[in-house]
């Protein structure tokens, strides 16, 4: 009996286990080893053991700074836009329209992020929004290739990932709790702060973490909308591995990014324990 159970468990876990070992742990180990090595004369990697690459990290300070400011900013902006939308979809929309509106939230995913980001080049470029602003007297507004353009791009690209977890949390919220709050003397806006918001925190945390982690590794949107002026750690990695061919330094930068993410996830887990202690439905992601 116990043996059968063990076998069943082993059988269930084998595919995922092999997958993670081959595609996550192995590459991570390689990157870690590379990060202590050196750049060979012709580029790529030369074995060695030195902390030189890590000492050199400040050279890429701008990339880390951009990532560490725009990723949280993008997360917060997505949250501020997504929460009211998710609330509207979960609480206010009649069932008749709900499905259609939810599909509309997903529709952008049907097109490649590359193409959608290119569309923003035209919207933010000289003949797009700046041209419209010029009409009302705001001349020489430059949007493209600014941090703002990158922010717009990432909020646009990742909004659905924020909307859905919050939507699910709000959808699950027992509406009778709000009646109970009203019955006990709470006006609607206070009931939102005391009941709705705390009970939707699992969705907020899940969505924020999803978006934040993906933004930390983002390189496409800064590359397209930042025009080489606003670059993320992801862009630095592309540059180091594919252009400068300095694999050792690139690995050190990658390891630093992974460490930052781990710290973030640890903080997230603590936040979940505080907000979501009452819920068994809080996944890590």
């Amino acid at each position, binding site marked *: 009996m116990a043996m059968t159970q063990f076998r069943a468990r082993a059988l269930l876990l084998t595919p995922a286990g092999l997958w993670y070992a081959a595609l996550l742990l192995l590459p991570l180990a390689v990157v870690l080893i590379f990060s202590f090595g050196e750049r060979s004369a012709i580029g790529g990697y030369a074995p060695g053991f030195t902390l030189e690459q890590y000492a050199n990290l400040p050279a890429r300070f701008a990339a880390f700074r951009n990532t560490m400011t725009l990723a949280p900013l993008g997360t917060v902006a997505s949250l501020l836009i997504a929460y009211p939308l998710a609330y509207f979809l979960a609480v206010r929309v009649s069932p008749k329209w709900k499905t259609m509106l939810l599909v509309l939230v997903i529709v952008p995913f049907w097109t490649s992020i590359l193409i959608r980001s290119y569309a923003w080049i035209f919207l933010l470029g000289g003949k797009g929004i700046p041209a419209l602003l010029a009409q009302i007297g705001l001349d020489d507004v430059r949007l493209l290739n600014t941090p703002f353009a990158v922010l717009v791009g990432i909020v646009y690209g990742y909004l659905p990932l924020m909307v859905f977890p919050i939507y699910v949390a709000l959808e699950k919220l027992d509406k*009778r709790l709000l*009646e109970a709050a009203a*019955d*006990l*003397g709470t006006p609607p806006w206070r009931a939102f702060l005391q009941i709705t918001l705390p*009970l939707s925190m699992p969705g907020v945390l899940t969505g924020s973490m999803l978006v934040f982690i993906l933004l930390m590794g983002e390189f496409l949107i800064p590359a397209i909308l930042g025009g080489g002026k606003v670059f993320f750690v992801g862009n630095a990695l592309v540059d180091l591995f594919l252009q400068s061919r300095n694999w050792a330094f690139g690995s050190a930068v990658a390891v630093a990014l992974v460490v930052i993410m781990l710290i973030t996830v640890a903080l997230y887990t603590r936040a979940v324990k505080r907000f979501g202690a009452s819920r068994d439905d809080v996944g890590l992601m």
Partner: protein
Amino acid sequence: MLDGYADAGNTMTQDHDMTQSPTDTRQTVAEFVGATKRFGEVLAADRIDLRIRRGEFLSFLGPSGCGKTTALRMLAGFESPTEGEVLIDGREVGGMPAYRRPVNMVFQHYALFPHMTVAENVGYGLRQRRPRLPKHEIADRVIRALATVRLDDFAQRRIWELSGGQQQRVALARAIINEPKILLLDEPMAALDAKLRGEMQRELLDLQRSLGITFVLVTHDQEEALSMSDRICIMGHGRIIQVGTPQDLYDRPRSRYVADFVGKANIVEGQIAARHSGWAQAALGNGVHVLVQDEPDDTRTHVDIAIRPEALSLVRRSDPTPAATAALPAMVTHRTFLGDHTEYLLTAEGIGTLQVNAPRAAERVAGGHDVGAYVHVLWPEQTGLVLAADS
């Protein structure tokens, strides 16, 4: 105590809601005046007129969709009447939002806040007061409320750690701590198992007596309504069908609807042969005459007559018929032994199916009757009641 329908000497405590005027707010805590609620095409509450007396335990009883919950929600402030008025303490509250009303509700599935402890749930209403109450006062009152529902040791527990009965007590404490003018109970027992339900019903009654708060209960469980209420308001199709004490409704159902809903009743057709001061001589389908109670102003000749199963008794065909009793020939089709009594289903010639409940004590002496036995159903004079036509 009650042998079928009331005998001649019993004076009925009629409901005077429609005639009493003007509203005496010392006696009336809340009132519906022609309160009507429409949801689109659906008429959920249809011209409800009712006075709720201060300190009473009133139940709205009826099947689902009868309008009882709508009536309760109009009191709570979750619905406002489409037409008519709802008054609390003599004040029209139709447009007053729930959070301003001096009433509190125990919800059907309790609706406890999952992100708060038991104590936080119970103190929630007090924390909403503006100007704010001092913290120590809230804490003291939470402790007292928890003691009232015998959950002293559970203050710091989480809601999901509690059993159904304990959760219900928390919901009760969370409501009564605010000292509402009326405590509204929306099928609070529905989620409890039968044994716990009986216990909670007794506790609720004790609580109501000790607090002196008016309780308004919504239920579809007639036993619950009968055992707990001072008065019951029977509802159907959004309207009030009959209001009265449990005994009133059991002894004097005005309609087939009420007779069917409160307790079990045999309803048979009768042809009125003669009437005399509230009594009617009626010929049943088999030609046998019975003397039954009737409204004095009734003029119908073809009527429905209700009689409770325990008012009837069974004897063998060969046994003599006692005086002032009609004997209906019948055959036993089903026999169900239920401990304290035996339930018989019979086919009576010219009448149809009758149910007779024979107490165990009588059967011990006289013996029972087997399925297939030919018997006489005995119908004593002056039991049974002519029903008004259902509106």
